[in-house]
């Protein structure tokens, strides 16, 4: 009785899969491999063991077990890896995906329901993948009188800007950041300034009323909350005397700035909620008034890209909060330091006669491996840590704090209703800016009293 699809034929299904696989393979061989060759040709290639790692060499080394580890290591320190994988896009996208999962399950728990449950067998783990597949396979519908180039460009630009924002976030000691700028905080403000433009352009290009109202609302909201956002961070800048985000984190090795500037933290958190268009400030997407705001006309993967961008933005803002107010990656170490000799010299393994024939470095290659060029042991008191240990410890603390902040960003969605646009602007222009100035005066007072800042403890 219960047949899922009565017209289903396994043969057609398999044929479809084989067709797709054939075309994918063809495209990869005809276009992908030459592209990889070209990219490899133009890349700045590392020198490993005195040899220039060319593309040909890399391919030959792939099949040489002894050379694989240096290859992976060189890959780890390449710019491509940083941009695409660890501190950059991939890491952020992973946290963003986890955020979506946590948001769904936590909201479901708060609202006494189950949430995604069946996809992925265990508590709906793979629901996001299923949703992504659905979005990719859906048809993209564009309004007839839309301004097509802008309409197409808007989601891509949105994701690009969010990725640029992510690139400025340092996640671990030792310069684990894609773009380590001296004016990092100012660069963050410059990047944030791009979002309203993309929003208003996409809203305008859809040529529809509801997106336009949503876009205008988003514009008002973002522009008016940028000012308290910037002002609330000035206190920290005054006290640390730097705009570099890594240096701001290192200035908090003793205590996080939230202890001295809770007002600034509250203002920044509120402004952050508004910039992220999260409830209670999700007026641009107020579905009972203006269908879905500036996202109304997006469909298929265009909508998916905008959502991806907004969750990347969420991660980046939470990380910025952690970096500036919660001390970033600083935190107690999880495990004792390794023996210096073990790392520098490695462990000699004797043969049956007792003669050392093989030297094995510490486990957890390549993070704990010695590399006199790049890895320097860092001292903290008497104990000595390798930078690999510091990296892992830093990332764990960073992720823990970021997840905690993300939890508090998500929680209002289950607790508060949406507010109105005039109330929002009132909060932004009257209350938050005033509080931000109070915060700046607290910082200035601390500096001039000599308690903190360049003349104080620091």
């Amino acid at each position, binding site marked *: 009785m219960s047949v899922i699809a009565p017209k289903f034929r396994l043969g057609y299904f398999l044929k479809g899969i084989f067709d797709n696989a054939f075309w994918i393979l063809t495209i990869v061989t005809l276009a992908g491999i030459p592209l990889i060759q070209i990219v490899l040709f133009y890349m700045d290639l590392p020198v490993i063991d005195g040899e220039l790692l060319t593309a040909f060499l890399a391919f030959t080394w792939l099949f040489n077990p002894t050379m694989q580890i240096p290859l992976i290591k060189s890959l780890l320190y390449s710019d491509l890896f940083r941009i695409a994988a660890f501190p950059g896009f991939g890491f952020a996208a992973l946290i963003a995906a986890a955020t979506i999962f946590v948001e769904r399950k936590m*909201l479901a728990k*708060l*609202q*006494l*329901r189950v949430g995604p449950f069946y996809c992925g067998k265990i508590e709906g783990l793979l629901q996001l993948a299923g949703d992504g597949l659905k979005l990719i396979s859906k048809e993209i519908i564009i309004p007839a009188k839309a301004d097509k180039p802008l309409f197409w460009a808007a989601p891509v630009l949105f994701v690009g800007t969010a990725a640029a924002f992510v690139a400025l976030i340092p996640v671990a000691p030792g310069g684990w950041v894609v773009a380590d700028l001296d004016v990092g905080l100012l660069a963050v403000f410059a990047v944030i300034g791009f979002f309203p433009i993309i929003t208003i352009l996409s809203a305008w290009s859809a040529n529809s*009323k*509801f997106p336009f*109202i949503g876009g205008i609302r988003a514009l008002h909201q973002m522009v008016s909350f940028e000012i308290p956002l910037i002002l609330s961070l000035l206190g920290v800048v005054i006290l640390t005397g730097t705009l570099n985000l890594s240096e701001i984190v290192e200035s908090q090795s003793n205590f996080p700035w939230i202890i001295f500037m809770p007002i600034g933290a509250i203002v920044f958190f509120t402004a952050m909620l508004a910039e992220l268009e999260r*409830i*209670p400030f*999700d*007026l641009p997407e*107020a*579905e*009972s*008034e*203006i*269908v879905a705001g500036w996202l109304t006309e997006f469909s298929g993967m265009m909508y998916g890209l905008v959502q991806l961008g907004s969750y990347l933005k969420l991660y980046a803002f939470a990380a910025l909060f952690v970096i500036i107010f919660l001390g970033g990656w600083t935190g107690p170490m999880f495990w004792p330091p390794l023996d210096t000799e073990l790392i520098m010299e490695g462990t000699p393994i004797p043969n049956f006669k007792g003669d050392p024939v093989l030297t094995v470095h510490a486990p957890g290659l390549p993070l704990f491996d010695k590399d006199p060029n790049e890895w320097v042991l860092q001292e903290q008191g008497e104990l000595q840590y390798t930078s690999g240990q510091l990296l892992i410890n830093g990332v764990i603390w960073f992720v823990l704090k970021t997840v905690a902040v993300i939890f508090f960003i998500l929680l209002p*969605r*289950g*607790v*508060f*209703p*949406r*507010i*109105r*646009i*005039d*109330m929002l602007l009132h909060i932004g222009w009257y209350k938050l800016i005033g509080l931000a100035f109070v915060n700046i005066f607290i910082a200035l007072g601390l500096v001039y009293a000599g308690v903190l800042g360049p003349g104080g403890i620091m």
Partner: protein
Amino acid sequence: MAEVIPTKEMPPGLQVENVDDRIMTLNVGPQHPGSGHMRIIVKIDGDYIVDADPDPGYVHRGEEKMAEARNYITNIPHLERPVIHDSCNILYPYVLGVEDLVGIEVPERAKYVRVIAAELNRCIYIQYWLAIYGIFLGHSTMFMWPAGDRELFIDLMEKISGARVTHAYFVPGGVRNDVPANFEDVCLRQVNYFEKRIKEYGDIFYDNPILKARTEDTGVLSREDAIRLGTTGSVLRASGVDYDVRVKEPYDVYDELDVHTNVLKAGDSYARSKVPWLDMLESCNIIRQALEKMPKSGSIRTKLKPNPKGGLDEVYRRVESGRGAAGCYIVSKEKPEPYRLKLSVGSFRNLIALPYLLKGEKLGNMPAVYWSLNYWPVEADR
């Protein structure tokens, strides 16, 4: 059509001279997440609504015309279709009217069972309404909690009548079937639990400062205007008019029960949304009293003749439903079918207040004002 072009009175200060490029017309509905099964043609100037014109009728199904072709018994499953969440209450005036026409007495126990079923249905309806009010204001938790707790009452109604929403439970002369054996205990237990639960609604929704700031002083309907516009139910009571059909013109056994009318003075969206919440508490109270006073056994249905006929008569009966007074006007001409049947429902009577209240409001207040009117589009269209 020789129609008169409507000239609406505008609040002072919003008269617009050049209408060309400042006014934007929005079609809110019928496929809009904030409209329900109707359309509101809203004209906005900036963020202010200068004109609002409700356009119901998207779910009009001619219940009144259809009723003229069916006899008094087969009308029962059809007349509850407009409000399946409040099906007992929308059927109540019809059943009372037919009893008046045919002239039969209802057993005492059946009256109590009817009151219990009606109050349970009122809770079911208000929770559904509250859920949508929550999601209209962007409060998704308030969507899920009442929608889940509604299950308590739906379970009870299912135990009584056997159906989850469309009960078809009231008949002229009593009710369709007796309640199950341990119904009193189960009902008391669930009602008591729900009273505890309803306080949580207050914590997260009604005492929420953001909600208060958002809905207080929006869409204010003064006492005089509420009377003048002929609103009913929670809209009327939120404006400070102490009127409840259950108290003023008690039907069945409401005169033996202690019914308290919840009246708020403010008349704004917040008060209009709070009155149903208080009504649910009052319903729990009434259910508890009725369970206590209900005769433990006895007949629950007076047998009707097959194909009952009303005399040459007309009758108008009204009850208090979840949305206000629901009346039924039956004209009978000595036939098994009603000659004319008219449902006068709270939603339709409250609709007149919508354009009146929306004019001069901000666009962001539109969902709050619209849904606080306790308006159910399907019922208004019939």
